């Protein structure tokens, strides 16, 4: 085993990446099972949003470090490891959910909406990790889930909330929604890559 591979493996294990992958796989299975049902207009968009949020929180939760501050002085590879792990997990989440939807099911809004929602909410989780700590990275995404589900509801039961910052309620090819979600993901990724999660040693697991 090369030292790079070993470093990647140790980093992944310390961030609970294997568990995150299991959680993402479980989300994909849950999405596929859920798509067996016939949901009404906004239910068909709300329920996938719940699954997308779950996958996003699993990704964001890996930002937490069990070592805290001491880890930061160990070498120059840490930002690259954070970037690689986060991008890989986000890609894995999008791929897993897209695969689940592609196996004979219809995902309302399509893969683009799913990828947009998942990336944006992951970005929100990463921002929370940077601001509050990795252990509390779920606070933003779960709060945003409630707002997103409500925004989708208002599309059918107006007055509709149309701000692009609530991108789950925007149509698939809406540029504002895509840009907002993309900007939040980029900001979250940058924050976690550069500074990591705001963790204290006492908050590790």
């Amino acid at each position, binding site marked *: 085993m090369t030292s790079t591979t070993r470093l990647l493996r140790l980093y992944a294990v310390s961030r*609970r990446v294997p*568990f*995150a992958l299991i*959680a993402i796989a479980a989300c994909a299975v849950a999405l596929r099972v859920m798509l067996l049902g016939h*949901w009404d207009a906004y*239910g068909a968009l*709300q*329920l996938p949003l*719940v699954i997308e*949020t*779950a996958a996003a*929180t*699993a990704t964001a*939760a890996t930002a*937490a470090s069990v070592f805290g501050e001491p880890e930061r002085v160990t070498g120059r590879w840490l930002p690259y490891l954070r970037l690689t792990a986060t991008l890989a997990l986000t890609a894995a989440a999008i791929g897993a959910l897209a695969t689940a939807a592609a196996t004979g099911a219809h995902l309302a809004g399509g893969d683009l909406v799913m990828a947009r929602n998942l990336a944006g909410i992951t970005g929100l989780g990463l921002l929370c990790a940077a601001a*509050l700590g*990795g*252990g*509390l*990275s*779920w*606070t*933003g*995404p*779960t*709060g945003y*889930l*409630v*707002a997103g*589900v*409500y925004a989708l509801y208002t599309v059918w*039961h*107006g007055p509709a*909330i149309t701000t692009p910052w609530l991108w789950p309620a925007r149509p698939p090819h809406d540029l504002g929604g895509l840009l907002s979600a993309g900007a939040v993901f980029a900001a979250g990724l940058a924050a976690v890559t550069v500074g990591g999660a705001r963790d204290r040693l*006492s*908050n*590790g*697991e």
Partner: protein
Amino acid sequence: MRAAGRLISLELRHNAMPLMLPLIAALFWLTTYRKVMAMPPLWNVRAASLQMNSVIVFVAPLAGAAAWMGSRESRRRVTDTVSITPRARWARLLPTWAATTIWALVAYLGCVAVLYGATARQASWGGPLWWPVAVAAASLPAFTALGFAAGVFAPSRFTAPITAIAAFFILVVSTELIIGSHSYWQITPVVAYAWDLGADPGVATFYPFLPDLPIAQLMFLGGFTVTLLGALALTSEGARALRIAAVGLTVAGLAVAVTAVMLAGTGTMDAHGMIRIPALHDAADDQPVRFTPVCSRTAIPVCLNPAYSSYLAATAATLEPVLEQIAGLPGAPVRILQEAAAYKQDTCQGPGSRVRSGTCSPNGVEINPGSPMSGGSPLVYRLLLPAQLPGPALTTAQMASQTRGDGWDMVRNFIGDGPGASPAQDAVTAAIIMAGKQPGATATFIQNGQDGTDAGRAPGLTTGTPANAAAKRFAALPASARHAWLAGHLAALRVGQITVAQVP
């Protein structure tokens, strides 16, 4: 006791819930306050919406924060250190759960105070409904107990998000499983009214709010919370007596929760649109609420329930033109009185279809006037306001547009018009409505059943027919001449003894 108080005070200061408060406040404003304040200022509608929305707002942050607090000992690797303290683990954990719950209740009561305070300033009648507030409040300890137990039993960085999202998911999906009023899923604290009917402004105004379902929900939430806390004690080290008490607590909680679910399954929607559970029902709640109606100063007074007094001016202005035409004539009503709607489930063919003189809600609940259109001595015409029916809040203009049809129905009822009526009755009905300068009221328009009228009620008055000409002729008469002719010929007109040619 003092030590317990000090422990709780410490836990209150070192709790994750204060971090959640800005998030909860923002979500409450976005999803609940804005929505509820856009609703008519009726306590019943706003209380139901408050319960439903606040439960949805609180569930995810609360379950997540509680799970985070529950996993604290493990997260900080002090499980072994604190296990040597003289207190049992359960006694150590309980103040943490209690502090989390106290924060949640304080936040929730703040939300209730803001919303009910604003409603108290706007509502014209009635008072706050506390059952929906109590159900949402009781759901908070249940959410914290769920999250806390998850955090204690499975401490990990993924526990809090999984618990938060799973609790939200279950709550949202549970409402999708409610079919009819016998559903066990009505026990979920999101349900604040007969689910198939929706938030209906006509419910719990003329009849008291039925606490049957809230009682079952409170039983369930209490039982659920006790079960989870008992389970925490069961798995903790401690004295034998504590374990025995924990077993008793868990079993009792479980029994209460299961009983509540079974009770919810026996519910039926009553004629007043609320869920009645026979075992919990108090017959005193079936008596109508006493109120003094607010009345307009029109030729025939229009009287509404004081809760709807904000609609009085618009309703009276819409009906006034036709009321002036018939006031004082023999057989004319002495007043128009708003009445309660009657609800019936499982009788509709489809959403929006008409049933007798009523309509169907989107989920197939039949809504009819609670009593015949007119009756009593002296004669009273009964009115079901469009604002009493389920659907989005109506503007004054929308209300007026929909109430106009009631004015037309009133004239038809007064003249005896309808299927089988004589052409003269059709003509006079159309003429009175036209003379009342109702917008869009031409003879053809009225009789062809457009613009809010029911197609087929009075067919046969088409352009170019003698009846149409008679209608225009009669409408063109001075009001006093019309009134005098009707006073002398109304009885004969009603029994079909007047021909079109005899209409002046």
